[in-house]
């Protein structure tokens, strides 16, 4: 898995709550059988108009968001469908950090599987970030080792994250390989529960 230690990137703000995974990647793009190439479809229905031209009002299309690597939104980001394609689309586009007031559970876990860091911050701090990002291009540095979000004007916020998940991201650990080291424990479990696990 992709290692995540530090990321310095331009911010794109989306002042919306409940951004669901149907918006992040609409269903017509879920037919692909690959994990890459989803960047063009990110927020497709909001990003482009019916003729396929880019919609100038949409957040990602604003000049100050060009090349964004950090997305900031409101509460319950990533709700709805479990489609990991939503994280692939963000990651393929270049978004490595999503900051929000809260996340939906499945989306939150999916981020960690793909080297994308989801950060929860309190409303007041998100408000402050929205204020600071409202003008010219605004960059943040996110440091996972220190658990901080900083800008060049002295803002320094700290965030909380589960130690185990942090460790996996810092080292880019492959969860499956780790679990397979416990192979003998899994086999013992299966033996103990053989009756229950027998399929009719």
């Amino acid at each position, binding site marked *: 898995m992709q290692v995540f230690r530090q990321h310095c990137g331009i911010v794109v703000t989306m002042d919306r709550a409940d951004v669901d995974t149907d918006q992040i990647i609409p269903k017509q793009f879920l037919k692909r059988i690959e994990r890459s190439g989803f960047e063009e479809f990110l927020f497709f229905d909001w990003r482009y108009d019916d003729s396929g031209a880019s919609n100038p009002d949409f957040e990602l299309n604003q000049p100050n968001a060009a090349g964004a690597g950090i997305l900031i939104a409101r509460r319950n980001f990533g709700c709805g*469908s479990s489609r990991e394609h939503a994280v692939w689309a963000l990651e393929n586009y270049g978004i490595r950090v999503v900051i929000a007031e809260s996340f939906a559970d499945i989306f939150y876990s999916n981020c960690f599987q793909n080297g994308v860091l989801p950060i929860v911050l309190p409303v007041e701090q998100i408000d402050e970030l929205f204020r600071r990002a409202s003008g010219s291009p605004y960059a943040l540095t996110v440091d996972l080792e220190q658990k901080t979000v900083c800008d060049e004007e002295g803002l320094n916020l700290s965030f909380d994250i589960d130690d185990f998940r942090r460790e996996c991201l810092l080292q880019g650990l492959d969860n499956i390989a780790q679990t397979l080291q416990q192979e003998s424990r899994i086999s013992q479990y299966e033996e103990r529960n053989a009756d229950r696990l027998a399929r009719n």
Partner: protein
Amino acid sequence: MSEPRTMFEKIWNEHIVYQEPNKQAVLYIDLQLVHEVTSPQAFEGLRLSGRKVRRPELTIATPDHNVPTTDRQLPILDPISRKQVETLRSNCQEFGITLFDLDDPRQGVVHIIGPEQGLTLPGMTIVCGDSHTATHGAFGSLAFGIGTSEVEHVLATQTLLQSKPRTLELRVDGRLAPGVTAKDLILYLIGQIGTAGGTGYVIEYTGEAILALSMEERMTVCNMSIEAGARAGMIAPDAVTADYLRGRNHAPADFEAAVKRWRSLPSDAGATFDTSRVFSAADIAPQVTWGTNPGHVLPVTAKVPQPSDFEDETERRSTARALEYMGLTPGTPLQNVDIDRVFIGSCTNGRIEDLRAAAAVAKGHQVAENVNAMVVPGSSVVRDQAMQEGLHKVFEQAGFEWREAGCSMCLAMNPDKLSPGERCASTSNRNFEGRQGKDGRTHLVSPAMAAASAIRGHFVDIRDWEYSK
């Protein structure tokens, strides 16, 4: 005496293979369901790392999301859809997984076929790369949706790394009034606790109103737990559960012994939940969503809200945006809102009881002139059963289209979709922007309400409906 425990805790503890302090638990998974959309990258991952499926017999696959609901003899027209279904087929073959393919009488929406075949049993852990896996919790199992990387993890190890969620009890006292269904109950609860109200929790639904529900109605309730933000919802198994499962294809051979085991599953008296909330069934009327998330819901007797009805600034803005998208004017009575399309189906409301309820309403009536209405059974078994009962005739005579089983216009990945601006009364679970087709407008309702709106051409309060003999 040991501490009283919740049903969730019992199942969770029983499935921990291993847990190091301060780490996620390695949880054993008893059953994985797989469909064509969220699995190709997982199988590809296995191939790339040279891994095998650890217990192929504990995974069952079916194509459902992307499949045509018209003539199944014809090839799938869209080449990318076809490729995805073919990829599922070849992956199942390569890794030794049982597939209920398109021509199999057991094919259908993953969350409908698991229970139908008796694969879903009380006390199990069940996962699927699909957020509506919560459906299976209706049997007193711990069932939740996962991402594709986790699907791969389960295929390779038959386990999953999980942090322990908190528990939320939603108790509903009293009985639902006539005409008020399980769908109305869950929409109401989502409206009350909000679309993130269940985030981080596993919900256990308790109380008289819940235990009075049939097995299929319980599935409707648990199905939409994710719409309240919870990954899982569960209901204690009882005689209703056992009666439903008895005699099903994969039901345990020694059924009575299994039933005995299941009796130890329900939460112990005095067990505590992290949070508990109590509601009264008497407060619940037939529900209709008006906006672009399932929490945007009101009784059918209400009017379209104004942004200024809400205190919170973010909520006001999201309401304004939703009303614009939905093309609704604040203050309009919901029953005056005209519709263009009706969709009856999905893993929420595509089971036989749902089709019976819709047919009872439709019988002897005609779909309104400007409305196109379709009925898509949730599985081929449901479809066959409905045809045996002659429900397809009732629907066809009333002017509904009768289709093959699949997800269909619940997410509109196949050709069944809304055109821009079209307004649909739908028995599915999500009214997100574009969910049923770009710029389409979805209102979530129960099957009876959907059928009645098809006939009148606008929403109606089903409690006023006159049923034909």
